């Protein structure tokens, strides 16, 4: 089901935890959908010098959180904003179709954190136009080969 990389990041997630005086915090998802991601950023001179996450969710949610934090660590805020869910999924050698939405969540969590950063620092990023961190991404629907475990 999952690639080795996913399992690796699930088993040994990088950057788990919280940052005490974080410069930005973003949270997306809700318990109803079964996934919540929270990302903490430490930013110096527009560079993400530290990042931590906490995730309530499936293996893929944890692995994508882990990979997303790895991918933005040390990058500029600008660069982090260009992170796509596809890039996260690819970095994990792919995700099962039903689990692609978890990578969307990771992308959104990063954006939500930077949104928070932008707000408290009065910055404006083109990439965040139209972005609403509280929007409920009803990402679970229209999944083709959904498997209900009802045995």
């Amino acid at each position, binding site marked *: 089901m*999952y690639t080795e990389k996913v*399992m690796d990041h*699930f*088993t040994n*997630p990088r950057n*788990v935890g919280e940052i005490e005086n974080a410069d930005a915090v973003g*949270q997306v998802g809700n*318990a*109803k*959908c*079964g*996934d*919540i*991601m*929270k990302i903490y950023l430490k930013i110096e001179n527009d560079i993400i010098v530290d990042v931590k996450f*906490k*995730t*309530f*969710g*499936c*293996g893929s*949610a*944890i692995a994508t959180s882990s990979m997303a934090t790895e991918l933005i660590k040390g990058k500029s805020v600008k660069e982090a904003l260009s992170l796509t869910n596809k890039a996260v999924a690819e970095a994990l050698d792919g995700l099962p179709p*039903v*689990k692609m*939405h978890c990578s969307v969540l990771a992308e959104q969590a990063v954006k939500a954190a930077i949104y928070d950063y932008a707000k408290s620092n009065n910055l404006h990023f083109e990439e965040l136009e139209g972005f609403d961190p509280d929007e409920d991404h*009803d990402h*679970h*629907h229209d*999944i083709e080969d*959904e*498997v*209900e*475990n*009802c*045995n």
Partner: protein
Amino acid sequence: MKKVYLDYSATTPMKKEVIDEMLPYLTEHFGNPSSIHSFGRESRKAVDNARDQIAKTLGAKSDEIFFTAGGTESDNWAIKGVAYAMKGKGNHIITTKIEHHAVLHTCEELAKEGFEITYLNVDQYGLINLEELKSAIKENTILITVMFANNEIGTIQPIKEIGQIAKEKGIIFHTDAVQAYGNVHINVDQLGLNLVSISSHKIYGPKGIGALYIRRGTKILPFIHGGAQEKKRRAGTENVASIVGFGKAAELAHESLDGHINRLLALRTKLMDNLLSKIPYSQVNGHPTKRLPGNVNISFEFIEGESLLLSLDMVGIAGSSGSACTSGSLDPSHVLMAIGLSHEIAHGSLRLTIGDFTTDEEIEYVLEKLPPIVDRLRQMSPLYEK
């Protein structure tokens, strides 16, 4: 790596006696039971014998047992077969909110065709309310279908009482006994059952074979049309080897039923009690006593089921969960919702089901491995404040 299988409600390994019984029918005795030559007669005899074996376990007559491809087909047949046979009399069917999808989705299909379906509520333990059932019955009610025992939380319904109500009102009563069969004593006469769905792969028999008990005189149309197999009521070349395996598995289950129940209950109690005491913020789902002997269903707050299952799998423990995240769908299990769990608690549910090959040592292993895994996932959870 150590492997501990605790998903007996999903499917069971076959017993050696069952495989041994099947093998000749996978090799030399391959005839089609409809053929009149010796190859065919050999197969026919084997099918008849299996039918006898199964009839005996239910207190039924042999000609009331019809083989199907599994519990799902049995459920589809029972419900559609009665609905179409009885539609001159009425179009109302009563079921529950916690049925298996084989029943629920079939009812939903019938609803599209104009049948009216009442879905009975269940209480926090998963039990239906007999008064609610009584008042749901109408002039045009043609079928009551209530599962014997639930596959997720293991709750056993008051089948005998339902049977009495159905009988008084002259309504056909079907029960999906796929999980109960082999784990509970079932006698179709004592319980007033008209139709019973059972499946082989839940009782240490092969997959892809099941049966529908049809009480003599029950109005029901065939579901699969074609050749004259199963007294013209279920077409298709008989799955001889699997039927033989199913018959043997049923016989074995019946013979050892009390021992089986007691053994499972002891292991179940040990596992459940210890998990509850070792892991804070945990709760049992389902009924404390009216439940399948091998069923444990616990919710651990703040964590999600799939990541729990994956972590368990990595230490060789196989379980299941009612979390939607195992399925990619939005809502967690309809059963857990129906007993009133919040989404969050439902997502953190774990089902461990014990069976005949489960050992005390395996239970110890789970008790050792599971608590730290829950703790680790909680440490990662934004919902958990230690």
